[in-house]
């Protein structure tokens, strides 16, 4: 019995026999011990629970999203560096084939679903309610639940790396390879459940923010007066609402194939693997626009603030965002032109894909015209924005090249494609979210990040990016395809691959600079006391930094765009600031531990499904249901902040000025 258990633990449960993974296992164990020790030694457990794990405050949820996302960025980045080391020279023996497969799979999943998505949701949470003059999102409890579902889903996916083995079938897990016959291990089940659980959270966030934007705007703020970031969030979240249910179903069908022996995507008994590829891309293509649209919104805010001009072409910008959101649902088949759908189908999807370039081009010109004759300040957020424009244009152009269906028979799955989507994802999404992070950091924490180190990081990221990915375009045209773990000497791919690897490490150095930048800024804290760090234009800059729990002591009365900027202009002209109405008690949601506990039960159930342990599945699912019922029966879920308390808080915050 004991021997059986030991055999199971060493042979099946824990991943053994790889020095890299063994090192990680030791590091993970040590980190957990260290965290537990620190929390216990400084008596911080209760603080962690009451202030963070049970919070429903959108600002704190946003902070947690961003912390999680940066950790995942580190992990996904290490994966990327390992791959580049393996590819630096022909016939290296650094990573073996199956290990390499696991690494490119986890790299893709983590970077898109557990890095880009949470960073995006973190920025949504922090900025959006402040921008539209709301005190919280529409459903604060659901918001907390979304975060914890994401968190435990990500944990479930990440644990596969040391327990049971990572998935190794590519980031979208195409069947039949991801089916039971060809992937009998548990890695694929970790993939399904990790993404499924966090996907439910993403869907809920989408609904939550659409409701927030449509129903929670400050009095007087019309839709066409909203800041552009709010529009981009709306476009992105509407896309989430229509795309994510497809992902839920697709993963569920794959799960049924693996767990109950269904035949949706198998090669026998009438299954159709191509249907999976269609379904997954019906979600997957909108997904990549979901992550880029908010970045467009951030660039619009940043350009307008640092050029000190109002955004050029507001209406065309809104139209572009919304049309990209709609068109994203009509381009999915361009991911498999080589599937053999026939010329007419391919032509349709090629044209819809090219159409996307039009609104995107409109946006680029709008940003350029916003900068035109502006008095530009080159702070870090603006640098990222300026670097983004050429980068995204090149990435977009190669995208249009790829969208030509006949040409795609050559480009398909080559490094040309890899370079293209990394260029739009790094040059668009990552640069955009960094710009947003630097831009709103002072609003969130009340101090700016160190500009000098930020510029070092910026240049390393940018130069590293071009050094890494420009050679890959050429490699793709030379015939190098993705998902190889080694190649021969006679291919002539070595020089460019070495250059590419050097670029990847430059980006790694850039990340170290960013960590250093954050640490340095915290150590030499320079408080930013005005609440308006960049001389901003929108409502979030009109309140103290960091904002109080209720955000706005009095809900702002808005008319027109850029309200905070206009108000500052009026005061500068010597007009009286508008008279303030008396304060009223503020209605706020109470903290709740249910989101955390319920998501943890989802994790338990998911872990049980992975190993097919009924004794774990049943309590997990029962726990989820019980949590839902407890929430349904609790009626005491909110409280009022008294006028005296608001006055005290405001005096403390404003007194700092």
């Amino acid at each position, binding site marked *: 019995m004991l021997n059986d258990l030991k055999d199971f633990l060493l042979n099946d449960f824990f991943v053994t026999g790889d020095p890299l993974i063994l090192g990680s296992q030791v590091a993970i164990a040590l980190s957990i011990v260290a965290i537990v020790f620190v929390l216990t030694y400084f008596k911080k457990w209760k603080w962690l629970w009451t202030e963070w794990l049970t919070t429903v405050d959108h600002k704190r949820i946003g902070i947690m999203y961003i912390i999680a996302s940066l950790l995942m960025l580190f992990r996904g980045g290490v994966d990327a560096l390992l791959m580049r080391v393996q590819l630096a020279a022909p016939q290296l023996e650094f990573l073996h084939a199956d290990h390499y497969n696991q690494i490119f799979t986890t790299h893709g999943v983590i970077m898109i679903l557990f890095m880009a998505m949470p960073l995006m949701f973190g920025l949504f949470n922090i900025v959006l309610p402040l921008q539209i003059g709301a005190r919280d999102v*529409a*459903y604060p409890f*659901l918001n907390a639940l979304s975060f914890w579902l994401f968190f435990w889903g990500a944990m479930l996916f990440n644990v596969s790396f040391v327990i049971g083995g990572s998935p190794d079938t590519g980031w979208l897990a195409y069947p039949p390879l991801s089916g039971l016959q060809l992937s009998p291990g548990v890695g694929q089940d970790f993939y399904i459940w990790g993404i499924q659980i966090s996907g439910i959270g993403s*869907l809920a966030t*989408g*609904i*939550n923010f*659409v*409701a927030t934007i*449509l129903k929670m705007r*400050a*009095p*007087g703020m019309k839709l066409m007066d909203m800041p552009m970031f709010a529009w981009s969030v709306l476009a992105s979240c509407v896309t989430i*609402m*229509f795309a*994510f*249910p*497809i992902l839920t*179903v*697709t993963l*569920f*069908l794959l799960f*049924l194939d693996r767990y*109950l022996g*269904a*035949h*949706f995507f*198998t090669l*026998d*008994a*009438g*299954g*159709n693997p191509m*249907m999976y590829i269609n*379904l997954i891309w*019906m979600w997957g293509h909108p997904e990549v626009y979901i992550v880029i649209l908010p970045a467009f919104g951030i660039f619009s805010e940043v350009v307008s603030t640092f050029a000190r001009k109002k955004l050029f072409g507001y209406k065309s910008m809104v139209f572009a965002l919304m049309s990209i959101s709609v068109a994203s649902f009509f381009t999915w088949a361009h991911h498999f032109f080589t599937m053999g759908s026939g010329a007419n189908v391919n032509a349709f999807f090629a044209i819809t894909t090219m159409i996307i370039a039009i609104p995107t081009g409109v946006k680029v010109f709008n940003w350029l015209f916003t900068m035109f004759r502006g008095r530009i300040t080159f702070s870090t957020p603006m640098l990222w924005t300026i670097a983004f424009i050429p980068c995204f244009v090149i990435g977009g152009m190669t995208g249009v090249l790829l969208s030509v269906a006949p040409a795609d028979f050559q480009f398909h799955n080559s490094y040309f494609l890899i370079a293209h989507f990394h260029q739009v994802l790094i040059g668009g999404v990552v640069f955009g979210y960094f710009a947003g992070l630097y831009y709103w950091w002072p609003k969130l924490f009340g101090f700016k990040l160190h500009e000098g180190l930020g510029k070092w990081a910026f240049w390393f990221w940018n130069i590293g990016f071009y050094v890494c990915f420009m050679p890959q375009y050429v490699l793709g045209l030379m015939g190098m395809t993705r998902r190889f773990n080694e190649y021969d000497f006679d291919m002539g791919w070595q020089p460019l691959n070495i250059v590419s690897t050097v670029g990847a490490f430059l980006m790694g150095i850039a990340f170290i600079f960013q960590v250093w930048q954050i640490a340095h800024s915290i150590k030499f804290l320079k408080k930013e006391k005005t609440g308006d760090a960049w001389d901003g234009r929108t*409502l979030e800059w009109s309140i103290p930094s960091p904002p109080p729990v209720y955000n706005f*002591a009095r809900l*702002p*009365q*808005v*008319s*027109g*765009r*850029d*309200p905070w900027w*206009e*108000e500052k202009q*009026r005061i500068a002209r010597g007009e009286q600031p*508008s*008279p*303030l*109405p*008396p304060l*009223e008690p503020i*209605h706020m949601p109470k903290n709740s531990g249910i989101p955390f506990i319920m998501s943890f039960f989802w994790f338990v159930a998911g872990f049980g499904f992975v190993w097919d342990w009924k004794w774990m599945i049943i309590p997990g699912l029962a726990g989820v*249901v019980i949590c839902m*019922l407890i929430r*349904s029966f609790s*009626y005491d879920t909110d409280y009022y902040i008294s006028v005296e308390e608001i006055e005290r808080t405001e005096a403390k915050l404003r007194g700092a000025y």
Partner: protein
Amino acid sequence: MAHATISGAPAHGGQGSVPPGHHVQGGHDEHHDHESLKTFGFWMFLITDCILFGTLFATYLVLRFNTSGGPTAEELFQMPIIIAETFILLTSSFTSGLAVLEMKKGNKKGLIGWLAVTAALGAAFIALEVSEFVHLVHEGATISTSAFLSAFFTLVGTHGLHVTVGLVWMIALMIQLAQRGITPVTDRKVTIISLYWHFLDVVWIFVFSLVYLLGVM
């Protein structure tokens, strides 16, 4: 462009001009707003649920002839049971509507009574569906027989699972109504579950037409 302004929103009888139709914070309408916001969110959830079922329907329609030598729709479906299920579910939709009407009248007893009838009809529907599935499995038509049956069981089973969740939810709601009576909060909860119930009915009509009627044609 009009000049933008910011000021605090005036309170009840506060100084300053209140534009027409302007929502005043605090006061009695806040609670109502709070509840209608949740109903609005539920409508959006139903949109996403439509997409979910739409994906399952598409899957079924793609795979429905892939019987791989196993039993076909014509051989399997017993229409009398299906028609009975359909009538039971349609009736339950009607009774849930009656429950909401009683709520609008402020009649707590009638509300709980009609909800109980709705739940009983829902339970009967589930019982029939389970017996149908058991019968199919005995015939040797399981989820792993062919792609057609995988898609069939998944689509119809997902709808059944939705109904089951609705039953648990409805029972929990009846207990809350007995405890608290009709308040703005319970009013909203009943409104939402009746939306959900009608939605499942609409989905069932699609199941009935696209799966069963199309299957036996």
